[in-house]
């Protein structure tokens, strides 16, 4: 989980992701950040995330991100 927070901080240095339960609703990630996040997660975990999994609700918090990673073969 710490690795995911590190990636998120890399995208938005100023945002406090640990204090948020919903990165989208709290305005910490926009649609471009999600695309950047997908790309960085794919590189980090050496996976390809299915395009149909690239929807905002799958990137709302760390739990949902971990679920997407696992679904697409990521080893957490």
């Amino acid at each position: 989980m710490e690795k995911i927070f590190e990636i998120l901080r890399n995208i938005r240095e100023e945002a406090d992701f640990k204090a948020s339960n919903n990165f989208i609703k709290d305005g910490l990630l926009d649609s471009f950040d999600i695309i950047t996040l997908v790309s960085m997660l794919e590189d980090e975990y050496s996976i390809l995330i299915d395009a149909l999994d690239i929807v905002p609700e799958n990137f709302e918090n760390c739990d949902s991100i971990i679920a997407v990673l696992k679904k697409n073969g990521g080893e957490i």
Partner: protein
Amino acid sequence: MRTVFQNKKISGILAVLPENEVRFEEEITNYSFSEKQTIRLKKIMGYEKHRLAKMETTPSDLCIFGIDYLLSKELLDLNDIGAIITVSITPDFWIPHISNIIHGHYNMSQDVLCVDLAQGCSGFILGLMEAFMILEHMPEKKILLLNADVLSHRVSYRDRNSFPLVGDAATVTIVENKSNESDIYFNIKSDGTRREALIIPAGGTRTPSSSLTAEMVDDGDGNYRSLDNMKMDGAAVFTFAQTEVPALIDEILHDAGIDKESIKWYLLHQPNKFMLQKLADRIGVPHDKVPMNIVELFGNSSGSSIPLDIAHNLKTEMKQEKGKCCMCAFGSGLTWCAMILELGEMEFCETFISKG
């Protein structure tokens, strides 16, 4: 709608680009990107450079640059033309129509049919459909199919979601009857319930342009645009394309009775690199069968992106023997469509840099 066209051929494609080429780095101060974001997005989305028409340049201007070029090279005889089909979402005027402007500019015969279609990114394939249908009634004539847009004039230069990827271009395509050509498979679908995913809210009769509609407003993500500008729901369009396009391609391949490997080139509309790579993966075809460089080199020019792709990437190949291609476009409407046909043995296939 799905159907099969017979004995039709694309005999030439000319892409017309404005001479003004702008690199992403030159516009970066217009957007709310940090330097780190800039470098990342450049790589991921394919933000590299785009071609922008001058503010006074219209779609008909770009078309005329192209037609003049073809006439000067004796690659086109306007006496052969039975119909002008123009496809654009950024017309010169409400009236007269672009096809009539072209018709008048060249003082063409009164028997030449003029048709304007308002269609966005699906405009090339829709234009071909129209051309093929008209050719059924014009056995001896050719169709001048013109796809032209100056979309950069309708997208806010401070909209980082859309402006870096927009490009202006026109294409001139000659379509004709030709016996013993392979069947052309065609499939087009629409979903008007999702029409607002791509919208220019003002400027039509519903909301005429005014000083109020020209007011720039922050959308909350740091993009400034007015109601006169194009607005895209990027997430909705992404999911739409990834859901509908692979299914459509499966369907048209089934109709044509061929497998994915039989297609030499998948010529997809190019909105951005990330979407294209994901689409290629979902369709299940190798990336090297899907040219993806048009949006990086020229920007997304709406309906002309597929013929521009052909003219830029396959110019040599298109003058040689034919190969089976699958074209697929998707965009405003929402509309998505595909066509399987053999392309090659063209009389011309090239790109022209204009003063527009």
